[in-house]
C-alpha cells in the first residue's frame, strides 16, 4: 500500500533544491529522525543532480511516496526518472571515483551508502530510473 506520490519535475538546478526539500519534509512527516532526514535529503540531492548533469536537457522527475508492507514496516520511497542516454555499465558508476562527465564520481556510491535499498533500471537510449528506499526504524 502506498500513499499518493508527490512529484517534483527536474529542469535545472532549482529542481535539486526543491526535490531534496520535499524529501526532507515528507521524511519528517513520516517520523524519521533528523539524521535520517539528512541522509534522505542528501541522497535525493545526489540523484536529482545526476538528472541535471546527465539526462537529456537535464530533465526528469522525482517521485516521493510513503510505503508500508503487510505485517509492519514502513518507510520512504523515492523514484528518480529521466529519459536520458542511460547508463552503459551500472557496476562502473557504483564505483567511487568513476565519472563520465562533470561530476565527482561520488554521487551514486554515496546514495547507496545513505539509503537502505537502491535499484537501478537503465537502458542505453531509453533513460534511467533509480529507486531508493529508507525504512523507518
Amino acid at each position, binding site marked *: 500500500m502506498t500513499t499518493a506520490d508527490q512529484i517534483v519535475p527536474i529542469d535545472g538546478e532549482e529542481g535539486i533544491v526543491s526535490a531534496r*526539500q520535499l524529501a526532507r519534509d515528507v521524511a519528517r512527516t513520516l517520523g524519521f529522525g*533528523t539524521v535520517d532526514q*539528512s541522509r534522505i535529503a542528501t541522497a535525493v540531492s545526489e540523484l536529482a543532480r545526476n538528472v541535471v548533469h546527465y539526462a537529456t536537457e537535464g530533465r526528469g522527475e522525482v517521485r516521493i511516496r510513503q510505503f508500508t508492507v503487510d505485517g509492519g514496516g514502513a518507510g520512504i520511497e523515492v523514484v528518480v526518472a529521466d529519459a536520458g542516454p542511460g547508463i552503459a555499465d551500472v557496476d562502473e558508476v557504483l564505483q567511487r571515483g568513476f565519472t563520465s562527465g562533470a561530476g*565527482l564520481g561520488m554521487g551514486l556510491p554515496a546514495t547507496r551508502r545513505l539509503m537502505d535499498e537502491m535499484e537501478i533500471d537503465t537502458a542505453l537510449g531509453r533513460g534511467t530510473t533509480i529507486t531508493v528506499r529508507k525504512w523507518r526504524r
Partner: protein
Amino acid sequence: MARVPIVRVGPVLISTLLSGLLDQEVLQLQEELMDSIEQSGARGVLLDISTVETVDTFLGRLLADIAAGARLMGAHTVVVGLQPAVAVTLVEMGLEFKAVHVALNAEKGWALLRRLLAP
C-alpha cells in the same frame, strides 16, 4: 545572483551560507572569495554553515576546494557550525573534511583562526 555576502573583519573574510543555495551560487561564492583574498590580502576565511541542512557531495567538495584554494593564496579557512546530522551524513558518504579546519561554532572558529594567524 551573489546570494552569499562576504564580510571583511580585519584580516578575515566571513561568509554565511544558507540552505537552498544553487550549485551556481556556491561556485560564484568560491570565485568571489578567491578574488576577495587577492584584493584584500585576507589571511583567514570563516565559513558559517550552521543553517545549512543538507551538505551533499557537491557542496562538501566545494567547501574543501575553497579551503584548498584559499590556502594556496596564503589564507586559512575554518568551516563552522556543521549540524550533527550533517556531520554523520558526511562521514557515511566518505567526505571527512580531513584537509579542512572545522570548529563547533563561529566563536570557536574565530578563536581557531586567531591561533592560526598568530605570528
